[in-house]
């Protein structure tokens, strides 16, 4: 799975970028990492009960369980296709049976921060496509929007129902200390991975039912029900009766197809492709065995550019011609709204604390990873002085290329990069290296610490924000590695939020 879904378009370079970046940084010596299970004084509170249970387990039995889980995942077809290669083998994301445990208090804090952030992001998107007050106020430079590829003029002067743009958000969070949580990415476009959150829990419940009677873990299984409710609540204002919801997938060869069919199945709605849909009597309708049937809400997992060949990429075979016209006429809700990718931009990310404050009037509860905008003289000076310790990225770059990873770069590379930076400072941002926390995984030799991140999922509708207590924990399976990405040997864990 990928941190940001790549349904039909480009190669998701940012993913590779981050993977490489984190990997290289892990080689820097002498770092200490926050361990979520243990501290100097013993086992941390959230893990006490689990630790007690684990101490009584037989390693051979657990190893067998672990194998059973893999067989189960495979025969259920919980796989992802390697993108761009239809014939490539479908791959399985390794599942580790040790849960990542978060206390109710920690979660409380996190979820408040996420809630605040997604509300701000929606207000920001509405503003950007309407009055643009944040630009008028000079909080964000106009260029960041004007030069932003994800900005869709076709969304100007239009408000979706309830002014909700990003209905499903997957906020990537890393932890570096007891109270240190940072947002790494906002993923307001089309976050994927929620099926793993649900399947991982289901697998744990089947393997270790006794654990869940001992330890009170908050449920995640309501997610599909809540997702459907949230989508229905976002239906067009003129919709009569219970809104008809569908999931739009690019098709069975998409890397996240399993998730698309899983969510449709779990919500009890139809899974459609572009060629199932057309405009009928002013609405988008799907071709059934008995004729066309009107649709009110479309949870699309097709990228903006491919959504409507009549408005965007005319060569797209994945989209629905005329859907943007029907959308602007107010006869369908598209979730997430087109153009939400504006807020996923790296440069916009660096302004997120200002964005949160501008729209909520509050200080941001969740921290950003410190980001130096080289367009600012002081920052530029700092970055130039500390290139060897920093990661420098192109602001609008298509990732991977044109970045500098200071700790692993040669003196020559650093010197050359400094020249590029000085020539066009506004094109770059820089970030310090990150020390991801660790959680143990199960190995044949017992528990061993590995680095993790976390992607909780938030649902936004005109009725409010709902955050599922849990999320997708990705774990770097290789010792010492900071690469949690599944395409680079990362795995997943069940994420427990304790009731308190």
């Amino acid at each position, binding site marked *: 799975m990928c941190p940001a879904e790549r349904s039909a378009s480009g190669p998701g370079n940012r993913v590779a970028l981050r993977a490489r970046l984190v990997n290289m940084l892990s080689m820097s010596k002498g770092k200490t990492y926050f361990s979520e299970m243990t501290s100097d004084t013993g086992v941390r509170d959230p893990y006490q009960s689990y630790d007690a249970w684990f101490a009584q387990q037989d390693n051979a039995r657990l190893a067998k369980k672990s194998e059973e889980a893999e067989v189960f995942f495979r025969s259920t077809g919980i796989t992802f296709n390697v993108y761009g290669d239809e014939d490539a083998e479908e791959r399985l994301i390794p599942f580790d049976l040790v849960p990542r445990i978060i206390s109710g208090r920690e979660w409380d804090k996190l979820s408040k921060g996420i809630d605040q952030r997604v509300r701000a992001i929606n207000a920001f998107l509405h503003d950007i496509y309407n009055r643009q007050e944040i630009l008028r106020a000079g909080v964000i430079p*106009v260029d960041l929007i004007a030069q932003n590829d994800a900005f869709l003029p076709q969304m100007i*002067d239009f408000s979706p129902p309830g002014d909700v743009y990003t209905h499903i958000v997957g906020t990537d969070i890393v932890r570096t200390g007891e109270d240190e949580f940072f947002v790494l990415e906002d993923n307001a476009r089309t976050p994927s991975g929620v099926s793993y959150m649900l399947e991982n829990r289901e697998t744990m419940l089947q393997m270790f039912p006794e654990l869940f009677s001992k330890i009170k873990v908050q449920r995640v299984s309501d997610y599909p029900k809540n997702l459907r409710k949230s989508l229905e609540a976002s239906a067009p204002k003129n919709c009569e009766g219970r809104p008809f919801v569908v999931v739009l997938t690019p098709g069975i060869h998409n890397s996240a197809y399993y998730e698309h069919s899983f969510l449709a199945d779990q919500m009890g709605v139809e899974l459609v492709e572009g060629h199932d849909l057309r405009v009928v*009597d002013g609405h988008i309708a799907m071709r059934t065995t008995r004729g066309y049937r009107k649709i009110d809400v479309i949870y699309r997992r097709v990228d903006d550019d491919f959504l409507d*060949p009549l408005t965007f990429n005319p060569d797209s075979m994945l989209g629905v011609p*005329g859907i943007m016209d029907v959308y*602007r006429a107010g006869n369908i809700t598209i979730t997430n709204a087109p153009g939400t990718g504006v807020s996923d931009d790296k440069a916009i990310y660096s302004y997120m604390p200002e964005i949160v404050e501008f729209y909520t009037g509050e200080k941001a509860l969740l921290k950003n990873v410190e980001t130096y905008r080289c367009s600012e003289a002081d920052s530029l000076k700092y970055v130039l002085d500390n290139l060897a310790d920093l990661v420098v990225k192109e602001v609008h770059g298509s990732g991977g290329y044109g970045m500098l990873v200071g700790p692993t770069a040669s003196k020559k590379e650093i010197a050359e990069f400094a020249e590029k930076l000085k020539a066009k400072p506004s094109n770059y941002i820089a970030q310090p290296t990150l020390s991801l926390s660790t959680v143990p995984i199960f190995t044949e030799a017992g528990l061993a610490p590995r680095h993790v991140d976390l992607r909780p999922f938030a649902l936004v509708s005109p009725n409010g924000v709902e955050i599922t207590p849990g999320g997708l924990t990705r774990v770097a399976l290789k010792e010492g590695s900071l690469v949690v990405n599944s395409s680079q040997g990362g795995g997943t864990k069940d994420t427990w939020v304790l009731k308190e």
Partner: protein
Amino acid sequence: MKLQIHHRTQYDYDAPVGYALQKVRLRPQRSIMQEVVDWELRVDGGQVEASYQDHYGNHVDLVSAEIGVRQLVITAKGTVKTHDAAGVLGRVYGRAPLWHFVQPTPLTVADDKIKALSGIIRESDTVLNGMHALSSAVLRAVPYEVGQTQATTSAVEAVAIGKGVCQDHANIFIAAARAAAIPARYVSGYLMMDDRVDQDASHAWAEVHLEGLGWVGFDVSNGVSPDERYVRIATGRDAGDDAPISGFRMGASDESLVVSLQVQQ
């Protein structure tokens, strides 16, 4: 001046049509330059599926062809009362910000030749005079000639070809204006040519946003600013943005297109 417009677009399909959509921008809007006395969009062989204001404030109708027809006719007709405002539309703004009209689009990228044309703006005493000078310069560089360019020809390509029609003139003018950081946009509409009732085609010109004046129109092809012979229909960032009709059709059948336009007093 009271103008009668009758704009008929006829699609003939060589096989019964399976599924076809047309996005239609053919409804004039009220402004200080024009009042819409009456207006009607008629669709024969199809229906209007949805109507809305687009991101530039244009009225859009999404039209579908009836399944199985071999002919779709879209007729826009009505009466518009026009006023001569010396081309000045004024300080009327939609939600699309001015900076948006400074950004180049694929059809309005400025190459060195267009930037050179753009230089004339700075050399003039006022920006307004500069724009008039630019208009003349574009027409000199690319004299009017039909048949040399197509709907998808960009400003850069038209300059290279050295011949063009109103659409190319507008695209080049817009590209040059933006190269000088002046917001510019494309306007599609009608022009009543005094000597005839049956007009060749829809017309197009450009508008730029000038400090103090607001939006001002320039018809490069005719070397004037729009007067009471002009009817404004739609605006966009280039010729692709506000095409009067753009379509999608499924299936392998071929279509042929006949457009007739009458503008008269």
